[in-house]
């Protein structure tokens, strides 16, 4: 089976630092794939590389079987690669509905002449777009707020709006950049339900997240980055027990002490 997203040797260097260092990673269609790692592990840079905001220093990115390494971000979006941002980036002065309609921009086929001449095709298309946008708002539970200005929404609702905006074109892959950041436990729980629904909706989810409970709860596969390198990949259960991962998070000494403690515990029990 061809992976939906296939990164090979992906590298990004900044002056004096390698943010992403030769990462190989495959995201298969279906399910939820999480990328975790300590602060500065290169997760956000990885997302920016995949969505096309930052050009790689080396390596290749293939999406739906096509090499997209040299494509601009808007072309990747048109191929069906959607994303949200860690620091919310809704279009504040627009209404909620307009925000989601903007997410459908690449799906609108009518060009300048159709717009200026107001061809019937253009009107029909706008109507279809509104229907799709409303469906996306339904999915995230914002249907009743479609006419509000985006800046008037609560923090949690703005995060939902970003997800609706990304999901409106029904993309095969959606990147969620720390979707649970700044949310309280109840909101996080609701978000977990929503993310699972996204994959039922037909989208594969790739997410970066700090909230370990959230990640372990909803992910099918977890990739762990440290200092820009992929150090482990597996199921949430496997990741939890992997010494290399524990060491990356807690440092060498603590990990060693934990391991020693665990052994002592076993001996005591036996």
């Amino acid at each position, binding site marked *: 089976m061809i992976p939906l997203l296939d990164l090979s040797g992906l590298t990004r260097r900044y002056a004096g630092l390698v943010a992403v260092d030769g990462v190989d990673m495959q995201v298969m269609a279906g399910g939820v794939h999480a990328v975790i790692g300590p602060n500065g592990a290169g997760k956000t840079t990885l997302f920016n590389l995949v969505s096309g*905001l930052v050009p790689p220093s080396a390596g290749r990115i293939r999406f739906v079987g096509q090499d997209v390494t040299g494509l601009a971000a808007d072309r990747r*979006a048109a191929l069906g690669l959607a994303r949200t*941002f860690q620091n919310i*980036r809704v*279009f504040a*002065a627009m*209404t909620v509905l307009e925000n989601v309609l903007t997410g459908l921009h690449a799906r609108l086929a009518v060009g300048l002449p159709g717009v200026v001449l107001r061809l019937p095709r253009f009107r029909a298309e*706008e109507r279809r777009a*509104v229907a799709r946008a409303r469906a996306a708002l339904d999915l995230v539970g914002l249907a009743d707020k479609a006419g*509000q200005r985006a800046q008037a929404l609560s923090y949690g609702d703005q995060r939902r709006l970003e997800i609706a905006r990304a999901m409106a074109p029904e993309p095969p892959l959606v990147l969620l950049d720390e979707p649970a950041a700044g949310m309280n436990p109840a909101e996080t729980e609701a978000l977990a339900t929503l993310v699972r629904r996204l994959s039922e909706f037909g989208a594969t989810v790739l997410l970066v997240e700090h909230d370990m409970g959230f990640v372990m709860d909803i992910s099918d596969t977890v990739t762990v980055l440290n200092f820009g390198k992929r150090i482990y990949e597996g199921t949430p259960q496997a990741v939890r027990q992997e010494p290399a991962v524990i060491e990356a998070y807690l440092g060498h000494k603590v990990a060693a002490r934990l391991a020693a403690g665990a052994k002592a515990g076993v001996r005591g029990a036996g």
Partner: protein
Amino acid sequence: MPAWLDDFLWTYQNLVYALGINGLLALSMYVVLAVGQLSLGQAAFMGLGAYSSALMTLKLGLPFAAVLPLSVVVPMVFALAVGGPTLRLAGVYLAIATIGMGEVLRAVYLNVDLFGGALGLSGIPERATAPLIYGLLGLAVLALWLIGRSGIGRAMEAMREDETAAEVMGVPVRRYKMGALLASATLAGLAGCLSAHVSSFIGPNEYGFEPAVTILSYALLGGIGTPLAPVVGAWVLTLLPELLRGVSDIRLVLNGVIIVLAVLFLPNGLLAVRMKRIGARTAA
């Protein structure tokens, strides 16, 4: 035409022309600001349109019906040359490069014989008419209005708010920025051709730094919520020195102060109306 209107037009002919032409210039600023860019090349594009069209009329003897559409060619070539590299970078580079372009073209007009040096070009036949000027202005406002109301207008507003987010949503930001700059060069080039063919004389100092900034003040006074707003801004700033004695001496100071006040206190301009497009109606 009724006699009084004829009289009025005769007396205020130059003002009538200036209002229409400045309206076109305000629109040429509007189209770039509408995608979140700042070009200060409008006066330079206007000068290129004016000089190239005057030369086509004077040296080649082309009919005005051919000169008018051809007057957009040279401004568009310059827009491509300057916009090509700068639109990939942060917005300030476009502003810097276009200011520089205006300064350099002024030096070129002054130093090259073909352009008549400091004397400029004179004896240009007065071929443009008020109905032509206002017809083009009306068409431009209508076209920009329809675009602004459509999904393209929505994408342009998204670019203005957050270019990166718009790009990730699939808005082809580079293509739109280049398109806006070319549209700006076209409108300014037409304005230059029209102004050359109503005033019979053009000179190198009409397209420098001061007019470039003045055109910005039109758009900032009116705001860029709709394409009509910058045109109204241009009309206010064109009429004010005519109506109030004493203002004409400090016209440029006033234009500068208006830019400062508009940026600091009125970021949406005087006419801060949002375009009515599908999905834009706000509920309480």
